[in-house]
């Protein structure tokens, strides 16, 4: 009797499996845990994600595959090649930073702990499965595993109407996008008779002429679901409201891990499966990229700094703009003779973006410890209150803008730019250059705000910002308020004087917490360390941009 079932390479699937099982363990533990022990769950989550990241180490050869067909040509459903590993590193690392950010949020906003950590972990497991899956069924299921828990996470904030509305909007539009994607997959299956990406590519190569229109329509519709996750432009309208309505760490998670699910799915589907239809999806992705970056950057430019949650809104729109840059190499792949070489630039850019964007969100969370409005004006004169936080934030913003000393941001942008030029997409390169310039304006304005002098209004702020700056109580003077400096935050004498000083000077501000939470400090420190390390040795991720990952 020969066995008909698939054999499983447990080492290859370990990163996904560890994440999912940790989620299950957290959910079950939560049921039997006394409320005072609930904070432990956060640390279990962080440990699980760290373990999942360690599980990537034995796989670095990138030659493992499992869940293969037992008949015919050995097509595998799960492949741990370098593309999968790089994206899994991004997902697991991003989730880890998010978890560090969340520890404080879960406690302070009294979110249900077990559910929060379970949903975060299961979403991360889906996002980690996605880049390794090599058939359309697993891809779609993984996409849904990554996004369905995110809907609940967005709506988790207690008694918040905006949160519920954001979750509903996100849910309905995402489900429609997935349904359209499924229709596309069914057309592709009808045209090629297979769901495995390589076989689909072979099938599309010599598709029956009568099925040509069907296959092309299937290809385009399949892209919709992934473009939605990436928040490419016609599918971006859920982003600002969802980010503002969600707890801040969830917004950070969506902007990084949610996007990684989108671009890795797009990369797999276009470059691997639909390669023969490059002349269909190439122009489509190029137009999407141009629209996405322009819309995102122009909208980010129009954010008014004194509006509530303007910092989160700006990051939301800038993440739409950044999604446009992520799309450029994928569009270039449609025009290039060797499309697989292009994808690396997207992965490298995404890794850079994940580190600095999570760092930026972490600093926003840090500022919100004192001033919970998430306003851009709350960041005014951060340098005088908390020099280290201001410096790291300035570094993150410069990385996002692509200016030195954010060297890694610059190099990643150059790598993306080069793919467009190499494959003859001159117009897209021009659009991208214009957009990078637009983005410089608002990133630099924010950076300048950080270093503005506390009392007098500087020319970099808008009249509206100046108005609030004068009507609001003056910001704490430099001597009294330096609570958030990472590392020295817990010094008892410093915090004592801070509380006294700030309650005296600014009655409108809630009292400054006795100490900035350690997990938050750790998250900022980790992101900053990674950002600096990458700026020192950009070849760590730029290596991905040269050569093929598959």
């Amino acid at each position, binding site marked *: 009797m020969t066995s008909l079932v698939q054999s499983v390479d447990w080492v290859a699937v370990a990163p996904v499996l560890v994440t999912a099982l940790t989620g299950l363990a957290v959910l079950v533990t939560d049921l039997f845990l006394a409320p005072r022990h609930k904070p432990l769950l956060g640390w279990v989550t962080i440990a699980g994600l760290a373990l999942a990241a360690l599980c990537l180490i034995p796989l670095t050869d990138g030659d493992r595959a499992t*869940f293969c067909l037992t008949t015919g040509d050995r097509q595998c459903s799960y492949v741990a090649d370098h593309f999968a590993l790089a994206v899994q590193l991004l997902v697991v690392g991003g989730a880890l930073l998010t978890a560090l950010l969340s520890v404080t949020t879960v406690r302070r906003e009294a979110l249900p702990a077990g559910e929060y950590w379970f949903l975060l972990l299961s979403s991360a497991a889906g996002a980690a499965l996605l880049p390794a899956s090599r058939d359309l069924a697993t891809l779609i299921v993984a996409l849904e595993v990554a996004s369905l828990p995110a809907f609940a996470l967005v709506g988790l904030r207690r008694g918040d109407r905006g949160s519920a509305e954001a979750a509903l909007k996100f849910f309905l539009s995402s489900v429609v996008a997935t349904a359209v994607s499924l229709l596309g997959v069914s057309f592709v299956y009808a045209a090629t008779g297979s769901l495995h990406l390589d076989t689909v590519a072979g099938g599309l190569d010599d598709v029956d002429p009568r099925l040509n229109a069907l296959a092309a329509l299937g290809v385009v519709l399949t892209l919709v679901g992934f473009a939605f996750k990436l928040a490419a432009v016609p599918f971006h309208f859920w982003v600002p409201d969802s980010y503002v309505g969600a707890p801040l760490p969830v917004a950070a998670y969506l902007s990084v891990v949610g996007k990684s699910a989108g671009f890795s799915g797009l990369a797999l589907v276009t470059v691997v499966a639909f390669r023969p239809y490059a002349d269909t999806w190439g122009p489509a992705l190029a137009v999407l990229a141009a629209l996405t970056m322009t819309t995102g950057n122009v909208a980010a430019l129009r954010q008014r700094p004194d509006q509530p949650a303007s910092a989160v809104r700006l990051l939301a729109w800038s993440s739409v703009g950044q999604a446009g840059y992520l799309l450029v190499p994928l569009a270039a792949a449609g025009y290039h003779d060797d499309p697989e070489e292009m994808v690396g630039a997207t992965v490298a850019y995404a890794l850079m973006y994940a580190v600095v964007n999570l760092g930026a969100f972490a600093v926003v969370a840090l500022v919100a410890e004192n001033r919970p409005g998430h306003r851009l004006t709350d960041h005014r004169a951060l340098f005088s209150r908390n020099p280290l936080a201001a410096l790291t934030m300035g570094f993150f913003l410069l990385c996002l803008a692509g200016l030195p000393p954010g060297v890694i941001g610059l190099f990643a942008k150059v790598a993306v730019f080069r793919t467009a030029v190499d494959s003859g997409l001159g117009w897209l390169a021009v659009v991208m250059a214009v957009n990078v310039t637009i983005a410089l304006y608002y990133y630099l304005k924010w950076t300048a705000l950080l270093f503005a002098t506390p009392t007098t209004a500087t020319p970099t702020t808008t009249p509206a910002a100046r108005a609030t700056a004068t009507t609001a109580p003056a910001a704490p003077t430099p001597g009294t308020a330096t609570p958030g400096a990472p590392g020295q935050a817990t010094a008892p004498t410093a915090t004592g004087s801070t509380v006294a000083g700030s309650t005296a000077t600014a009655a409108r501000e809630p009292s400054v917490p006795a100490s900035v939470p350690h997990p938050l400090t750790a998250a900022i420190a980790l992101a900053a360390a990674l950002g600096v390390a990458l700026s020192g040795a950009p070849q760590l991720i730029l290596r991905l941009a040269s050569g093929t990952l598959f």
Partner: protein
Amino acid sequence: MILTAEANGFLSPNGVEIVFLLVGVVTLGAAVITVTTRQLVHAALWLVVALGGLAVEYLLLTAEFIAWVQVLIYVGSVVVLLLFGLMLTRAPIGRSPDADSENRWVALAVALAAAATLVTVVADAFRSTWIDLDRSVQGSPEVTGESLFRHWVLPFEALSVLLLAALVGAITLSRRRGADDAPASPKQER
């Protein structure tokens, strides 16, 4: 599975094809009534007819397993979920004068355009292909099970995570809403 037309033609339909067409007409009619009726509960019940008609179509195509999935999941539980969802709202039994939104002409245009595109493309692609129904049954639970547990174990197990996350997410959100809404006095909307 797909054969080109040789012995088949539009002029000599067999019994299965005639039943297929009749059930298709009934399903289409029920679907149209579902979206046009002004009585919400009736709309849900017409949806049962449409989904049931679709199940019969699956059966006629020998997709036996999918047909019963359609009956158990869609007719059996999704419609129940839909009805409970309707009963959570303050929608009245009987005619709802406000059931039509201002956007209905846009919706109609979008629906017609989408349907026209899909029908054209699909009909054009499969105009001259026929499913041979006389061979062994293609969509029986045995065939599905064999394929599922030989080749599709990974998405199958991933699905269990998806279902668990859906369950936990729905319970979390509904518990919160339940706790918040219970003390509040119901708003007067009519």
